[in-house]
């Protein structure tokens, strides 16, 4: 069902022989059962072949729940309260911590999760709230803020690595803003489909492409002499990256058919589950940041059926991701963050829905630098108020930065604006979420 993103006829010959070699080594048709160490080997080989570029040492995987998930129906149930709705709560070892009945696998992995229940947003519209939670700053039209994945890619990615430092799967519009094109999101619309235009055209091989580039180089030189040098430079750097992506065998990261059916089923066969599997494959191969989007959480109507369905996608994918990362020794270096743009109202509206709710929402973390088995912040019996001070978005970003060992205090001065600090210095990391 999934199409292989590599058109065998069109693949650069050198890369092809390399894969043949790999297949022989494994004794299977394709690298179906790559053990972690082998992937590691391939990464190092490929990077060495291309002359430099290190895999990122730490990684971020952002599971973005677009539309704003209901916190009560996921990570902050209110059993017995009139606001709870029909879902039961699954207990954990801790009396103050439970999960929705539709997140059973995540509940079983509570020891590896940290849940923040008191994030406060300040934006109530989808677009602005989505931007806020991706920028760490209140969006303003005059500043092109970079999105979270680009920030991480900028700090953790290696510009010489053959894969793009930030991959966005089924993504929302978001850009690298003032950080520039080097860390722009590489957008994969469909995780099981082909990457647009990635392959050499059927009648073009590497030599022919080089010949074409030779002709173009003359045009670029002339253009640069006539004043276009600045524009041409930016263009050139991205063209080089594109070509490297065409040529690297690491690009097989995008080929989910290399995974066994069992693994693919484990993540869930939906777009999201397969996207999370792709995220794991990318991180294994050294990509710094991946964002995977699960849409449909804007449940103004029919909240409970919808949320149940969506939890059915989130629960296996997130859980299997934790297992796989742990198994591959990557969990400590990979921060997984699962959140949406805001929460949903404790009150259930006339159409069995829940409306936007900014006062408190939940964020679930796993992996690198996070203290597993932690729940931070409590809300009152109906879930309408936080007990104590809520956590601000700036604090969330400071926390993410801390776990990834990103300093974030670099300042940038985008054209015609005031200097901006990469991560809002107002933010204070939430210590309770951090591992000692």
């Amino acid at each position, binding site marked *: 069902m999934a199409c292989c993103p590599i058109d065998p006829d069109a693949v650069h010959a050198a890369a092809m022989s390399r894969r043949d070699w790999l297949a022989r080594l494994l004794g299977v048709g394709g690298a179906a059962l790559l053990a972690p160490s082998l992937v590691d080997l391939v990464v190092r080989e490929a990077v060495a072949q291309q002359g430099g570029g290190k895999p990122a040492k730490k990684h971020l995987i952002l599971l973005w729940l677009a539309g704003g998930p209901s916190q009560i129906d996921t990570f902050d149930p209110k059993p017995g309260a009139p606001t709870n709705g029909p879902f039961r709560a699954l207990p954990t070892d801790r009396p103050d911590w439970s999960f929705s009945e539709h997140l059973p696998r995540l509940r079983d992995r509570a020891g590896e999760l940290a849940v923040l229940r008191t994030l406060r947003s300040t934006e109530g519209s989808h677009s602005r709230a989505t931007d806020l939670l991706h920028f760490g700053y209140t969006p303003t039209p005059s500043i092109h803020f970079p999105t979270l994945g680009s920030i991480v890619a900028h700090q953790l990615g290696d510009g010489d690595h053959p894969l793009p430092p930030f991959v966005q799967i089924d993504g929302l519009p978001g850009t690298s803003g003032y950080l520039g094109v080097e860390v722009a999101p590489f957008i994969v619309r469909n995780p099981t489909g082909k990457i647009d235009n990635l392959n050499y055209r059927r009648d073009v091989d590497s030599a022919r492409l080089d010949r074409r580039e030779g002709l173009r180089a*003359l045009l670029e030189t002339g253009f640069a002499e006539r004043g276009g040098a600045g524009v041409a430079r930016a*263009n050139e750097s991205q063209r080089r990256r594109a070509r490297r992506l065409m040529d690297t065998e690491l690009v097989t990261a995008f080929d989910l058919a290399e995974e066994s059916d069992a693994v693919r089923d484990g993540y869930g066969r939906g777009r999201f589950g397969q996207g999370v599997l792709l995220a794991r494959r990318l991180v294994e191969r050294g990509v710094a940041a991946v964002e995977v989007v699960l849409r449909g959480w804007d449940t103004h109507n029919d909240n409970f059926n919808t949320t149940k369905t969506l939890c059915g996608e989130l629960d296996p994918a997130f859980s299997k991701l934790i297992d796989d990362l742990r198994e591959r020794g990557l969990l400590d270096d990979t921060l997984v963050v699962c959140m949406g743009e805001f929460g949903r109202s404790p009150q259930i509206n006339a159409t069995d829905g829940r409306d936007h709710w900014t006062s408190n929402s939940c964020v679930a973390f796993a992996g690198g630098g996070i203290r597993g088995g932690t729940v931070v912040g409590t809300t009152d019996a109906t879930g309408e108020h936080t007990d104590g001070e809520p956590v601000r978005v700036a604090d969330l970003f400071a926390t993410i930065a801390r776990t990834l060992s990103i300093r974030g205090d670099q300042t940038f001065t985008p054209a*015609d604006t005031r200097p901006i600090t990469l991560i809002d210095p107002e933010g204070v990391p939430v210590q309770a979420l951090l591992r000692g």
Partner: protein
Amino acid sequence: MIRALSCAALLPLAAAFLRPLEPVQAAAQTNPSARVALQVDGTAARTLADRIDVALAAAWLAEGLEPAALADDATWLRRLSLDLRGIIPTAAEVTAFLADARADKRDATIDAFLASPDFARHLSYLWSNVLFATAPRERQRTEVLLRPWLEAQFAAGAPFSTIVDGVVAGAEWTRYPTSSAYVLTYQDSIETLAGAVARSFLGLQIQCAQCHDHPFDAWKQVEFNRFAAFFIDVRSDHTAGPGNTTLFRIADRSPEWDFQERLNKLVVQARRPSGGMRGAMTSGLAPKAEGDSVVFEEDLLGTDGGMAGAMQARATTNADQLAAMEELLAVAKKTRKREDVLRDYGNDAPRLDALLARLPVEARDLIQRYRDRRTAFTEAGFLDGTPAQDQEKSTRRAALAAWIHRTDNRWHGRAIANRVAAELLGHGLIEPIDDLTGVGADRILPELLDELGAAFAASSDLRLLYGAMARTRAYAAGSASAEEGPQRNHAERWFAAQPMRAFSSEQLLFSLMRATSADGHVELADADLEAFAAERERKSRVDTLKAWCRGDLATGKAQYEPSIPAALYLMNGDSTVRTTELRGQPALASLFEPGPPTAGALDQLFLATLSRPPTDAERERFAASFSDPSVPRPRALEDALWALLNATEFHTRR
């Protein structure tokens, strides 16, 4: 009555280039109305251009700047074509222009472009982008309904005030919403709608005042609320049309009407034996007809029909609650138009309290909603502080549109002039261009902007602004510069040099299509507004490119930005190697044959892509690439075309 003039019939584009142009004038000056300019008025544009030249010359003197040397003819023509038509010129157009010895060929070309259907199409994309820049992402699908309407208006030479009227106040019954598609887009949020209208047509950022009084901003929350109140009655409406069709419109419904209708639905719902709740009632524009209307709703507006929230009763309504609602409904039905439905209870607080206590929560919410809307209704007011008159309140959107394009509106003319300056001269006289009153805005030459704004307001004709700015010395300046950095920025700030600018996604798509077509013709226009399938396909192709272009919130435009997917698109996509149609060009024939190409053929290839002849070095190198006997035809041509279309120069407006 103004008769729309068909630009297409008046001046076929290709013909315009092959023969000298008559000075365009008088043809349509039968209507003396100063607000209607059906024809491009070269004289008025020249006069205004002189005013700009004088103001800028003084500024250059004061700033110690020398304007950059003039751009050569080929560069200027390409720039003009991109700015006025949104597409590169054809090879034939470049050749004719370079050979044209007339002293006034630039002015003639400006007027020809302004009269071409391409100008209308270009404007429609620009304004569609502006209007939808802040639209909720999931609602931007309605753009496919509005853009063709915009194009039709511009092509008919309609004054810009027609656009404002249609977009702000469109209320016509149509098979598919056209101008009113805009209001439909924002129907869920009149605040966003109000903010977008102010931003687009007035250059004002008022939406920050939606939530609070910003200490540093000119706008107060009360001013925002009064402005937004002009849209408070907006709702969609439908009726049976001819045959098995449904007609749509955006209607303005009073708070009383809205209250009564919603309450009635609650009552009907509660009366059902089951009292069941789900799926029974949706308000607004539920499709009654089969066929494409349904497709329209689901595809363009989303599965909920894009309509304001469905009203559905809870299952728990009891007999007493129903009785209370029926009592309230009876009172509401007695109310005359625009009378307060709660007036019977107005002096009898205990009686109202008693009723409220009996109502289900949904009905109480309705009362709150009604009161909010009624308050807003009584407060509607324009941004200059004038309150709306009673008569204006009942036709409130039309009154707002009329106020926006009044000749003495203090922002509209300047806002539009500022946008055109940004398009043609590189940036606005106020930046950001949609924040005229912004505290941190960068302003230069305010008197000049006043003058341009007044000229536009008087004519409501975008062609006057485009015609004037394109005629200026600043527009003719070169972009080539060895220097980068502060000095260069200083020169560009004062319009002493033209900036280099990456193509917008539309310019890139259309220019690629033109460069690889048989005769420079690009099939884009589609007058049939109902054929939104074609428009949707067009939008999806533009959106594909937009996905990896950098979006700009002020213009809604996405500009080509180098990225891996963008590079892959040009390197390996279909658009840069399409040679089949080129076979139709006799001048290119030798490029398909074995043996060395004729010099003319190579020139033609450069003209069709980079809009200039090759340099000597380029001619030599490209000719050599055709001489390699190991490269079969048309591979050499594919390679050459690929190199030209992949060159940075191709997708740069310079």
